[in-house]
């Protein structure tokens, strides 16, 4: 049985069908990449799964529960962690406090008014930071971190609620090539240990083709391919959306179109 199953998902903005009848599924422990050119509908698709947007139609089944249209915080409580395309942390807190914040929320401690928060769940937070290699920076203000380190802290935060599914929107955006591979290696290792499924979007084809178990391709809101790296590489439709067919310019040059 799949961890997440998307069925007939659609969303239109005005007249633009940003996501059009998309269906796919993620199995347990699977590392699934969602790729596609700019404007393909990846972010819209992502934002519907994490609750930022409500779909016009279609189902998003987490286990056997339809989470379409639920609030992000409710989806998080069902065991879906996420990281953001533009990583940022709670700027007025230290690194470890950022992770503690997620742990406090997970433990249902948010409305406690008396016990100082600094001591609560600190051990567990340090453990998580150690797993992403950030334990040494635990008590630094998080806004001082380098961008790559912010990404790591974000990962520790995303693991705080022991998710079964991790949504990562462009996890390596804005990073240098070596950092990219390190981060994805770390993610892959952590999710393998825990049996977490991961859905991620990515622009770096290097990362996608070397790490993803399976790849799905979106173009103009539709799912055009679904398969392993070799199958996607050889798919003519995928080649067309990424490299064009060579017909684009001949169409425009046809008589009558030019003034």
């Amino acid at each position: 049985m799949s961890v997440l199953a998307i069925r007939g998902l659609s969303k239109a903005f005005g007249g633009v069908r940003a996501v059009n009848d998309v269906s796919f599924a993620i199995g347990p422990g699977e590392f699934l990449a969602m790729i596609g050119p700019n404007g393909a509908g990846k972010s819209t698709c992502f934002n519907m799964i994490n609750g930022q947007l409500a779909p016009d139609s279609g189902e998003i089944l987490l286990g056997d529960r339809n989470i379409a249209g639920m609030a992000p915080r409710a989806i998080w409580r069902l065991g879906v962690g996420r990281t953001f395309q533009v990583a940022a942390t709670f700027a007025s807190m230290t690194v470890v406090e950022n992770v503690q914040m997620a742990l406090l929320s997970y433990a249902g401690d948010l409305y406690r008014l008396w016990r100082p928060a600094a001591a609560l769940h600190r051990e567990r937070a340090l453990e998580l930071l150690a797993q992403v290699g950030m334990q040494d920076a635990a008590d630094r203000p998080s806004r001082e971190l380098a961008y790559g380190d912010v990404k790591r802290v974000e990962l520790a935060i995303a693991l705080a609620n022991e998710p079964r599914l991790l949504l990562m929107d462009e996890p390596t955006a804005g990073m240098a090539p070596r950092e990219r591979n390190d981060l994805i290696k770390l993610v892959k290792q952590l999710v393998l240990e825990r049996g977490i499924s991961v859905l991620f979007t990515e622009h770096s084809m290097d990362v996608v083709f070397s790490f993803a178990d399976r790849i799905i391709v979106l173009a103009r809101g539709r799912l055009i391919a679904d398969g392993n790296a070799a199958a996607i590489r050889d798919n003519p439709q995928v080649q067309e959306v990424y490299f064009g067919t060579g017909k684009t310019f001949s169409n425009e040059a046809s008589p009558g179109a030019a003034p």
Partner: protein
Amino acid sequence: MTLDALLFQAINGLSSASGLFFIAVGLSLIFGVTRIINLAHGSLYMMGTYIAYSFATKIGGVIGFWGGILATAIIVGCIGALIEILLLRRIYRAPELFQLLATFALVLVFNDMTHWIWGSEDLLGPRAPGLAGSVELLGRRLPSYDLFLALAGPVVLLILHFTLKVTRFGRLIRAATQDREMVGALGVNQAVLFTSVFALGAALAGLGGALQVAREPATLATDLIALGDAFVVVVVGGMGSITGAYLAAVIIAEVKALCIGIGVVNFGGIAVNFSKFTLVAEFLVMAIVLIVRPYGLLGKPQGAVRSVAEPEEPIRAATPMLKLLAAVVLGLLLFLPVLAQSSPYLMILGIDVLIAVIFATSLHFIMGPGGMHSFGHAAYFGLGAYGAALLVKWLAAPMGIALAAAPLVALAGALLFGWFAVRLSGVYLAMLTLAFAQIVWAAVFQWEGFTGGSNGVIGVWPKPPFDQGWAFFLLTLALATIAVLLLRRFLFAPFGYAMRAGRDSPLRAEAIGIDVKRIHWLAFAIAGCICGVAGGLFAFAKGSISPESIHVGRSIDGLVMVLLGGIQTLTGPIVGASVFALLQDTIMRQTEYWRALLGAVILVLVLAFPSGIVGAFSNLWRRLRGPS
């Protein structure tokens, strides 16, 4: 009442609508382009009336009146340009709050300046030459000048509309309203654009004020009243929309006219005088619009303004040094009654300072860590004060019960208002909280039978032993200490962390399961509740409470206290409140022109110490210790 009478009131309402439109449209244009809420806009309007009065009486005749009105518009436009060049240009990149404070300082300065030039008497201008008579309408007489005003609004609306539509200047204004960074990036000279828009907005306010000269006397109270009206109109119509401004002006003016027209109605034996609810009605319309259409009737959500505020340091538990300092201060305060034996005034001063500390600390709780810039904290102060005072007045409640009820009444109000307020953010939240505070004020002011109206409630004196200054001081000290420690405790607890998480990044907070609105709503309620304690103490300390002490001025005082101390520090509001209350009670009371003095203090603060007193000290401390 008859349909004719209603219709007549409706036409009368249109002439008021024009006045509202002139002041609101300038405010709206200025906000649209510069993203600055010009609190001094009401002052420009007020000065318009005064200047036009001088023209009409000193020169006189057709030229003095009509020429004077045009000249006034130009003069006030020039004043606007000067404000932009000398002050605002320095603070475009400062946090929103500082811009608001700076323009509020101008309100204070202009008020005293007008006072100094024209005196405190109300000045009624001459009738308009050529329009002094009246016309017959539906069997009643309508002054021709009112009819002229009713038409002047739509005419100016049309002129502005086409100017914005077809001229290059108009296109630039519209472009800047949509995205001012983009306009700057395209090489438009923003300095000139901003100055000219500010001058245009100011000139329109001046014109509006000048046109009132034949209708209403020029008074010093006009600035805040006109400002309040303009806010309501702009927010209802949608920031930056001129058609929206006219639409809203008509709605507000008509609702008010309707209230007056309906007059006294009997509801099953209870007589309700609707003409007493004009103020409440106005702010009620605004609150409803903000709740249903948060960006106003014709407004659009604004592009996010890139935040330039300096990020905050993580909060740290009190160092031994700070604890020692707090203990010393507390010890000194306990010792104060002994000193007061020779100067009893010291106790009054001490009580004022401590009440200010509770007020400012509770405001800081939601403003700083909560990121909710409430412009209406006086509401909860007022609810607490009136809650306690009315219990004493109507039920002869003992002081203990009345004081305990104060925070509960404030809590109820904060729960109600906060539920709506947390749905908005930034400027709109500020405006909605202001509207709620005005509703409380107006209800208290106009509901004479229950609250005593403008006279307030008197005879709320504490019972022995608290009728002694020192005993009441110690009571206030105890409650202030508890309030400050409690709020501080909350901030260090998970709740306070969740509140800051919601402020730092609402998106991310929601993504880790935090119900940001709910957390902020509860924080709002807690702050209101604690503020109610300050209100209750205030009523007993003064022996009375009147609408004047819960007016918008008190809300602004609170903002000044918080910013004076430094919004990003936890001890800031305590220091800020103390300094402010001391300044107010000592220096300010010595001079007739204390408003201008306070305005000058605020301007210095905004331009020289943007991180407040405590912020400036801790920056200095960090610099002295060098990089750690």
